[in-house]
């Protein structure tokens, strides 16, 4: 196992710069997820770690050794591709054995390693099949088997679950996570799915437009998003973001929207009086008001998911979403008094989008 250090890495394709000076440290044995919308440079970064793309400037080190000029085969890494990239003309066994064969491993060693990996991944009975005779999930497992037989320093995953259906995706998510706990191998995982990132990562690196927006433990990123982009990107349903002006009265801070709705922001909010801010509150941090000051939300749509009830409504002219664990039977058009949990309110600077406080 080894750590991966990415230092001031830039990537240009011709005159277009797609990665603008990324710094990340991936600790030995950790599971790091590169998360971002498509085109944010996360796959390019992964491919640079793999050696499939050249690094325009900066350094990538694996296990302390700079690998900028080391060809992919000598970096001691394995990669799981989005389309699996299984060799269609080789049986499952040979797909997994190929890398070992090329490295001149002995037949008995190869056989033992392939069978061991097949056991871990429940592939033993498919070893004699061609990739086309397998289902999507099985192919996915073969692709992982091909990676683990090599026992590499670092595993790279490039959106490995995006070709699977929703149910299988959840199942494979758990399997990959289990596999990581078992092998304790350094893993870098690229995805645009924030649920995958939240559930699998030790550390999430949120990227946008070739920059890192924030990196940290999943719950840390969830609880304290650094900026508006991260706040909106992480979490489903997405955080409510409402623009307004800070007003202080009687020791309490409020954010007043353009149409005059006052949103309570808690006592410890650090925002100057009169400044323009974005007020953020997650749907599950809105509760029903129990007397006292409340927000008057007009219900538009109620979406029960079984586990929770999602209420989409209007607060003045702003759309707002609230999620409740209880099964409320609200009707469209009904006015419901709600209140945000004050300690869960996020304030962001309206100009820069940065977190305040």
């Amino acid at each position: 196992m080894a750590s991966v250090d990415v230092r001031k890495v830039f990537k240009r394709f011709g005159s277009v710069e797609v990665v603008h000076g990324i710094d990340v440290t991936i600790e030995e044995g950790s599971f790091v997820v590169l998360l971002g919308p498509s085109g944010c440079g996360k796959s390019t970064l992964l491919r640079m770690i793999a050696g499939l793309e050249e690094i325009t400037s900066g350094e990538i080190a694996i296990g302390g050794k700079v690998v900028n000029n080391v060809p992919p085969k000598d970096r001691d890494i394995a990669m799981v591709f989005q389309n699996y990239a299984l060799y269609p003309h080789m049986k499952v066994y040979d797909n997994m054995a190929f890398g070992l064969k090329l490295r001149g491993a002995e037949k008995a060693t190869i056989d033992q390693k392939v069978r061991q990996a097949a056991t871990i991944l429940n592939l033993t009975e498919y070893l004699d099949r061609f990739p086309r005779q397998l289902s999507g999930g099985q192919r996915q497992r073969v692709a992982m088997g091909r990676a683990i037989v090599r026992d590499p320093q670092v595993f790279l995953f490039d959106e490995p679950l995006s070709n699977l259906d929703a149910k299988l995706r959840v199942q494979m998510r758990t399997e990959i996570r289990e596999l990581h706990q078992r092998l304790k191998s350094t893993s870098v995982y690229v995805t645009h799915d924030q649920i995958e990132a939240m559930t699998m990562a030790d550390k999430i690196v949120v990227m946008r437009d070739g920059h890192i927006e924030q990196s940290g433990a999943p719950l840390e990123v969830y609880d304290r998003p650094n900026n508006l982009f991260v706040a909106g990107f992480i979490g489903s349903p997405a955080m409510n973001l409402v623009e307004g002006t800070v007003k202080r009265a009687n020791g309490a801070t409020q954010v007043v929207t353009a149409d005059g709705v006052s949103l309570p922001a808690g006592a410890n909010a650090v925002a100057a009086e009169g400044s323009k801010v974005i007020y953020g509150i997650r749907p599950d941090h809105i509760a029903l008001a129990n007397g006292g000051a409340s927000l008057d939300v007009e219900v538009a749509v109620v979406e029960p998911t079984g586990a929770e009830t999602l209420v989409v409504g209007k607060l003045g002219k702003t759309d707002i979403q609230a999620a409740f664990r209880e099964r409320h039977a609200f009707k469209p058009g009904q006015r419901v008094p709600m209140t945000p949990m004050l300690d869960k309110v996020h304030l962001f600077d309206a100009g820069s989008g940065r977190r305040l406080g």
Partner: protein
Amino acid sequence: MAATATALDPRSGAALEKLGRWLDNRTVLSVLFMFPAASILLVFLTYPLALGVWMGFTDVKIGRPGIFIGLENYISLFNDGVFLLSVFNTIVYTVVATIFKFGLGLWLALLLNHTIPFKAYVRAFVLLPYIIPTVLSAIAFWWIYDAQFSIISWGLSQFGLIDRYIDFLGVPWNARWSVIAANVWRGIPFVAICLLAGLQTISPSLYEAAALDGANSWQRFRHVTVPMLMPILAVVLTFSVLFTFTDFQLIYAITRGGPLNATHLMATLAFQRAIPGGQLGEGAAIATAMIPFLVGATIFSYYGLQRRKWQQGSQDD
């Protein structure tokens, strides 16, 4: 519909109904739909082929109907040195030209598969030899191989590599190599473009996976490119062999089979004997003698073209 017809005229209504039912019959319909295509094939393919085979068993000459003479033509051909030489020439021509066409064509396809500037133009340019009418390029080769004005001889003598002009078309083996070179030049684009199409269907991520698995460029070629290209290679190989084996134009325009019949292929000899020579029966027999070779090549390709086991099953990626 039948009801309205009956209302108008009871008798024609019944007939129409009968016709309608008859046209609804699947067998009738399928015969009807196949008729146009089948008639074209019968008139322009089956009939000439059958006529040619039949003529091979007769002694028909131009302007004189012949009588059935059984295998006489074939027996005389098997004792005919020129015919046997033409069989030898055809095999050498086909085998050597095919090897070069595929070697160079694959190489060209691999080069074209790289990112190169002006890709589209370069690819179009490569097709040029294939677009030029055969006779035109044959005439160009005729000049290139001319005993006195050959540009190759001139070039080599300018570099001081030879002191006498090469007699390309006057010496048997020189002539054979010369027409093979011309055929290779003409055939490469077809092979290269077909194989390039095949190469482009190979997912780049397979090469990346192989690179990560530790394969060098030769191993990537050997373990990824070659097996993935095999199906299309078999198709192109078959077509190329068939075209080369039955080649006529190039030879006839450059050498007419000379010198001393050294470049006579079966096709040119068949024409030579049948039309200028007037021995239609014998010419037809020579042409018919090509059939076993062609059937052999087709059977080979039939097995080559069968879907390989790994190609079976779904592909939902």
